[in-house]
């Protein structure tokens, strides 16, 4: 029973991380880079229009950060729930 409770909390926490990170993913890839691209294009930094930059450069950097943040959060979660594979 105790195991089951722990797993439930673990899974809920995981889903919470997922929903936050995937929302960022959606905003950057689909809203900034595509849907509202033209409004963001009115901002120019150096030679880049912002919407265009996100579509061809920025999104990719954000994607990398998202994965590494997820890895960090999950490794921490695994430790705190002692579901670390090395010990398990």
């Amino acid at each position: 029973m105790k195991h089951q409770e722990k797993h439930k909390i673990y899974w809920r926490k995981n889903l919470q991380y997922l929903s936050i990170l995937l929302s960022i993913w959606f905003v950057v890839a689909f809203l900034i880079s595509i849907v509202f691209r033209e409004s963001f294009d009115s901002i120019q930094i150096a030679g880049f229009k912002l919407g265009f930059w996100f579509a061809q450069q920025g999104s990719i950097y954000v994607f990398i950060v998202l994965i590494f943040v997820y890895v960090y959060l999950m490794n921490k979660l695994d430790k705190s729930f002692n579901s670390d594979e090395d010990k398990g």
Partner: protein
Amino acid sequence: MNIFAWTYIIVTFTFILYIGIAIWARAKSTGEFYIAGKGVNPVLNGMATAADWMSAASFISMAGIISFSGYDGSVYLLGWTGGYVLLALLLAPYLRKFGKYTVPDFVGDRYYSQTARVVAVLCAIFISFTYVSGQMRGVGIVFSRFLDVSIDVGVIIGMLIVFFYAVMGGMKGITYTQVAQYCVLIFAFMVPAIFISLLITGNPIPQLGFGSETLNGGYLLDKLDGLNSQLGFAPYTDGSKSTLDVFFITAALMVGTAGLPHVIVRFYTVKKVSSARISAGWALLFIAILYTTAPAVAAFSRFNLIETVSEAEYDKVPKWFKTWEETKLIKFEDKNGDGKIQYTGPKSEIENELTIDKDIMVLANPEIANLPNWVVGLIAAGGLAAALSTAAGLLLVISTSVAHDLFKKGWKKDLSEKKELLIARIAAGFAVIIAGHFGMNPPGFVAEVVAFAFGFAAASFFPIIIMGIFSKRINKEGAIAGMISGIGITAAYIIFFKFLFPELNSTENWLWGISPEGFGTVGMVVNFIVAITVSKFTPAPPEEVGEMVEKIRIPVGAGESHEINA
């Protein structure tokens, strides 16, 4: 030394390297053959995944496509990288925890159904063959352009090399060769990119040079917008596709990427669940080096091209122009007879006289920019590395599907490991030959079927794997109905516009303005809806399945027992 000699030396050197690695890392068991014995370091796995993923198309064609389409080309950049976020967050860790060899394994077990497994196997084989034929063709083209042999001879050489290390080494051999191939291809892509960035903007980092001023003043992208408009093309940073279509294509490519079997299977090769997560991160990082450079190369080469050829006198064009004219990748027809090259877009009143193949932007770039001969030699080696590494990964999926999913799990459950390994090797051998055949006699629709591969992966694998992990209620009836309706609607749409009525293939006729390339997204949504609805009205999956899902969700060792919680 001339270009030819350099190319021979560099290509021969890399081939010896790949064969050496294959001998060193040959597979001795089915575990090693299918998933490299689960012992691959996550960073190396990331590199191998990157090479596996980046095909001849990424290396040779992508920068060119972006160069000619400007903003519209973003769909490939976003789609083929954003998919890794889905992989890392939604698929890789759970499939690794599941711990068997293939995607059909998961589908068959989770949906406790032989039918579901067979549908999955057929999808996997179809997707992989589509892809691998394109790779073999790519190998042949690189050979014929740089090494002066016919395309067919090029394909045969490519077949022999892949045969050697895929059949002998299996996943283990492939993984370590792919690591080497990644190094070769990224070096080959970056060196000319850095040179050209320096040449045009004075900044050695292409990602920054992209947004810098050119040496004659004025921001590169602003100048490109101006040049494009002046010649009657859509402005470079604007593009001409509708926002909705860009949205759907991007989504289909992302979801398709996350559903491609040869990418997913890479995450079975690492030791732990946490390694599966991090290796998706490394893979994307390694891919991003090329994918953030490609749009910069696209802009540089567009600028270079227009500056060199627009209104130039045909008699005085540089040597590369004539060389590539011979290969028919550049065609010039002096329609108004003024002896000058008019290169214009659809919105211009002046008739266009120049057709340029998109591949030329990467292949001829070093020559256009007057780079040293050894750099040109590198491009050939890089293109071959990209094509061979992807081909090998795909061939493995095909051989695993045949030996493991069909033979072992299908009709001969008592197959010994030794026999299974033999069948896997024979299947890989056959797959090489069939792929080579398609490489030599490409069906006219190779480009068209690529849309198929992504659309299929998006409409079939992605939804049922996601539902298999995140829901316990989806049952076999739902999964099978979902897969079939998702694939069915996607296939129908693509076949209608690409094969039956290609003349109707334009925005006015598309459903809600979605192109066939983007329709996989609709197929995915249909799959989800059908699977959920059908599952609601049919009996829940058996209790063991609920237990299995519970286990997949938690990284800890599979030995633990769980109470059922359905």
